[in-house]
């Protein structure tokens, strides 16, 4: 118990670093996904833009949602938001704090994907290759080409093998130009994100530090309380099961005494621990019956008070049972899956 408390405490005080770890893993996973992804520009006039922007914008959205899903605290936030008021008021600043900290962590992997994509340049090259300024970079005076044909030619820029517009504009020139713009966008994006993060982090102690400490304490408290409640319920379930099974075996042995009168009485001088643990079942037939009875007819979820030492036999005789056992059978079967 002590060891669990210790580990629990360590995790609680390092809850934030645990979440930061998951966040870092997701960022690494997003770079890995990008390098493993086989980028194939379609090299057709209208499809390029859709493909390029799709690869640029859809995976970050997925990663953002995944960031929320993988965060354990989302269910805690939802529960705290939707619970009825009861005897405890709800504090909107706590909810805001929890949501903000989750959103900040969920935004890191999409930002990493966007930066890596922009710095690599393939997406922007694919998406905007038809917008290259041919007048500035190539021979705009190349005759006999309708705008549609020019578009088709330019759309093939990302696919070097099939590019046939070398007279119009050299492939390397166009690719370098687009890549330069893409990398400039990428670094600007990273700078913007970093500046935002810096401002958010450094302006907070200047304003509302006390409110922040309060929200942080209570959000940790809600989390700990939920975990402790689960732990207490698990302990309770364990004790419940132990007593229930003990009472089942006792019931079995008294049943056998009543039905067969075969069981030898417990010699009071001899009751070592081993004999007690046998719970009165001392031969193969009885054990088989106990096992069969456990399968066919599980005991009701209702614990009797412990038997008085007058040896009354049937433990539950002193009090009327709360409900008849028959309607419980389906409930019992349902519970035994938990």
């Amino acid at each position, binding site marked *: 118990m*002590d*060891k669990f408390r*210790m580990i*629990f*405490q360590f995790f*609680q*005080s390092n809850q934030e670093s645990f979440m930061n770890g998951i966040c870092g893993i997701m960022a690494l996973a997003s770079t890995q996904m990008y390098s493993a992804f086989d980028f194939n520009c379609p090299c057709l006039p209208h499809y390029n833009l859709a493909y390029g922007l799709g690869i640029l914008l859809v995976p970050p959205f997925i990663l953002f949602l995944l960031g929320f899903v993988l965060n354990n605290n989302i269910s805690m936030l939802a529960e705290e938001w939707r*619970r*009825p008021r*009861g*005897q*405890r008021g709800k504090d909107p600043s706590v909810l805001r704090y929890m949501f903000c900290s989750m959103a900040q962590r969920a935004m890191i992997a999409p930002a990493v994907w966007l930066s890596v994509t922009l*710095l690599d*340049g393939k997406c922007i090259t694919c998406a905007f290759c038809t917008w290259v300024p041919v007048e500035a*970079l190539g021979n705009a005076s190349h005759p006999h080409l309708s705008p549609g044909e020019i578009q088709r030619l330019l759309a093939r820029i990302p696919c070097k093998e099939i590019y046939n517009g070398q007279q119009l504009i*050299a492939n*390397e020139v166009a690719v*370098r*130009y687009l*890549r*330069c713009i893409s*990398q*400039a966008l990428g*670094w*600007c994006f*990273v*700078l913007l994100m*970093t500046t935002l*993060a*810096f401002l958010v982090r*450094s302006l907070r*102690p*200047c304003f509302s*530090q006390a409110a922040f400490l309060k929200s942080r*304490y209570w959000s*940790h408290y809600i989390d*700990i*309380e939920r975990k*402790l*409640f689960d732990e*207490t*319920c698990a302990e*309770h379930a364990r*004790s*419940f099961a*132990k*007593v229930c099974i003990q009472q089942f075996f006792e019931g079995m042995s008294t049943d056998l005494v009543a039905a067969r009168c075969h069981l030898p009485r417990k010699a009071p001088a001899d009751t070592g621990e081993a004999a007690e643990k046998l719970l009165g079942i001392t031969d193969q037939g009885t054990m088989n019956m106990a096992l069969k009875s456990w399968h066919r007819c599980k005991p009701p*979820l*209702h*614990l009797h*008070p*412990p038997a*008085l030492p007058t040896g009354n036999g049937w433990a539950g005789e*002193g*009090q*009327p049972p*709360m409900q008849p056992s028959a309607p*419980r059978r389906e*409930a019992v079967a349902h*519970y035994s899956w938990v």
Partner: protein
Amino acid sequence: MDRFRMLFQYFQSNSESVMNGICGLLALASVKIYTSFDFSCPCLPQYNMAYGLGIMFVPPIILFLCGLILNRQSLVMLEEWRRPPGHRKKDPAVIRYMCSSILQRAMVAPVVWIIVTLLDGKCLICAFSGSVDPEKFVGFANMSTGQVQQLLAKVPCKDEELMRNSTSRKAVSRYLRCCSQALGWSILLILIIAAFLARWLRPCFSQATLLQARHWSNYIDMEQKVFEETCCEHSRLFAHKCILHFFESMRQEIKLHSFSLPREGEGDEGEEDLLRGITDQDQVNKLLKTWYYEKPPLDVSQAQQR
């Protein structure tokens, strides 16, 4: 228990070494980012300078901001700076010390980036190939200014058809790289001499003030960590009491509403304690439902008085 306490104590007493570790990691990360970054100079007259200087200066700003964000002590310093005086005076020397140590650590990664960039040379070749004096090099005679500019702009791109085997391109490239590396090594030398002098000469001036400032900045850092730890411990105990109180009140409610009271038998007291009077499927269901619909108030004063 002991081992965790020891680990905690180690980290608390060595928050400076943790920060040094982060600083070193960031410097390594900057080298790694530079080597994995695919530098491609646009080789166009107006864009070269912007691209080259951009790659040389924008990532250091980003790394500097990252260094400030990742450093826990910057938050501590800001809080100390902005807090109301209350019962405790504010010592500007401590704040200055913390500020300078944070800035020094944050400057390491940007400086590493700039030096690596200069020693590698690609950025400077890209940025300043158009500013080279074409008179000095053989292959640029007999050409108009515009053409010369275009050709010079293409120097950084080795695969350009026009420039592939051009000796004048190689000459310009070597010249610029030489300048870049000289600049890089000079900056490195100046910085190391400055660091050496600062560290060597510091004990000669105001050593006592420095020791005080360092002690109190460590103290403030540790105090905040201990406060956070105590808050965690407190919230754990608070939650524990709250839940026990909840189970107790549930037990009493059941006693009030049901007429078959479970008798407090003598046997198996340990299990009875853990069961807390809840011995029935319906009672468990009621407890769980009440936990959701009516969470107990955040007030364990009655529990304390028991």
